[in-house]
């Protein structure tokens, strides 16, 4: 556990050691704001809630999360520090957990910096703050699941661009699986179990379920199990491929 904490601290400090972290946060905030105000018609709706803000998170994360996860392992491979890192007396699982938690925490920091939106709706009206809190939780859980996918992909390449593209594609599949367009295309010819599975596997489906304000443990469990599964795969891939 101590090793996890040490790795977590180093990784998190690493994000802020370069301007990249700040650039990332600014882009995240600007894009979240633009999508909410212009595309989501935040003011025109005349409702005091953050629904348009959260509705775009899956699509926003599609681009931003792979950008965050791509360097997790790929950068260590490229610079050769992976050998230094993995010849220290730590377990691979500790290394994987420390790195992931730092990335997830960073995503949490970026997300929490959107708090002015929350304040704004409270000034403008009387929103259901329980729903908003649940939505933040949902968004953070989804970010974690996506990061775990990205960490796993990053573990097998030294090329960050490849890591980005492959992660974005996988995350897109996971997100879009339950989208109405996909379900519409499937319905009629595909068997019902495929539609059900598609919804069950979908980031967006579980995400929107929680953002409605009901924190169903099954949805939480879904995101947590995606994280655990991909991080487990991440550790195995690192052990198998560390020298290649």
């Amino acid at each position: 556990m101590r090793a996890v904490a040490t790795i977590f601290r180093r990784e998190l400090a690493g994000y802020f050691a370069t301007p990249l972290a700040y650039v990332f946060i600014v882009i995240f905030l600007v894009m979240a704001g633009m999508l909410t105000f212009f595309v989501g018609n935040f003011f025109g709706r005349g409702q005091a809630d953050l629904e348009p803000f959260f509705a775009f998170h899956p699509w926003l994360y599609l681009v931003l999360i792979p950008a965050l996860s791509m360097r997790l392992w790929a950068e260590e491979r490229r610079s050769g520090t992976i050998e230094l890192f993995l010849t220290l007396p730590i377990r691979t699982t500790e290394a994987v957990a420390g790195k992931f938690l730092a990335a997830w925490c960073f995503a949490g920091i970026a997300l929490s910096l959107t708090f002015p939106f929350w304040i704004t709706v409270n000034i403008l009206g009387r929103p259901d703050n329980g729903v908003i809190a649940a939505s933040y939780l949902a968004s953070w859980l989804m970010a974690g699941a996506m990061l775990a996918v990205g960490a796993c992909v990053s573990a097998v390449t030294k090329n960050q661009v490849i890591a980005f593209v492959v992660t974005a594609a996988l995350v897109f599949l996971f997100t879009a699986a339950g989208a109405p367009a996909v379900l519409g295309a499937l319905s009629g010819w595909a068997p019902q179990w495929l539609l059900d599975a598609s919804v069950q596997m979908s980031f967006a489906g579980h995400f929107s379920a929680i953002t409605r304000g009901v924190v169903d443990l099954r949805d939480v469990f879904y995101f947590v199990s995606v994280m655990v599964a991909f991080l487990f795969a991440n550790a195995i891939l690192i052990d198998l491929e560390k020298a290649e």
Partner: protein
Amino acid sequence: MLEIRHLVKHFGALVAVDDVSFAVARGEVLGFLGPSGAGKSTTMKMITGFVPPSSGTSVICGYDILRAPLAAKRCIGYLLEGAPAYPDMTPAAFLEFVAHIRGFRGREAKRRIGRIVETIHIADVMHQPIEILSKGYRRRVGVAQALLHDPPVVILDEPTDGLDPNQKYEMRRIIDEMRPNKAIVISTHLLEEVEAVCSRAIIIAHGRILADATPAELARRSRRHNAVRLAAAGISEARLRAELIRLPMVAAVEAAPDGEGVSVFPRDGQDIVADLADLARAHRWPVTLLRVEQGRLDEVFREITTAAAAPAAAAA
């Protein structure tokens, strides 16, 4: 303290390391010598648990790296080839990270970092990002990281590669100072290094051990071992040759590589300098140069490694 047992590594069809075994005791500095691509780094990566061996294993302080990797890794200090480190960290932050990972906290971490910074002389650069440090400093930070926990087994992959002569000297001093209570392996392709710091040398090429001996023993294998350089004013090389080759203990006489006089090679490495001196006196040659040669490690190295290359090339 370090025991390597039949390590083998395949990369696809390539056999990078082919049944390498050796043991290193406390107080020994083993020079791991070989041309580039010989398999030195791959062997070290298997010892330190980064590369899983195709077969064989290594045992560090009684811990098998495959069965008890954490315990084994705690006993090893490892300087990687090229000493990569996190570029945006400062040596201070980097060493603190390594100290924490190795289980040293607070005062103990500070004390250890302080001590190593003093021995390795990196105090001046402790707060600059590693990426802007010179090669010499970067290497030193790598060494500091490797020695922080005072490990009984030290593995250094090309510790002096790319350093200037002063930095090389400094690195050798560091190795020399820690040698009494550690088992040390350094890989290198520099022969001067082996002569300067190693108590034993293993020559490896194409993944195979070709020689395992002290540097002096290796030098003795040189044709030049106990050869004598002889030059005399006004006496032609042809004349010297004609007279010298008549001596029964002389195997061959050749023009010296630098053109001054001749090199006289003894039969069976015997000591011939007294006989040559007698001969010169008898002929009243005005001798300007008479010197016994020690045997050159680089020659032995070339002979051994190129002889091994020939059959491999023929087979390919």
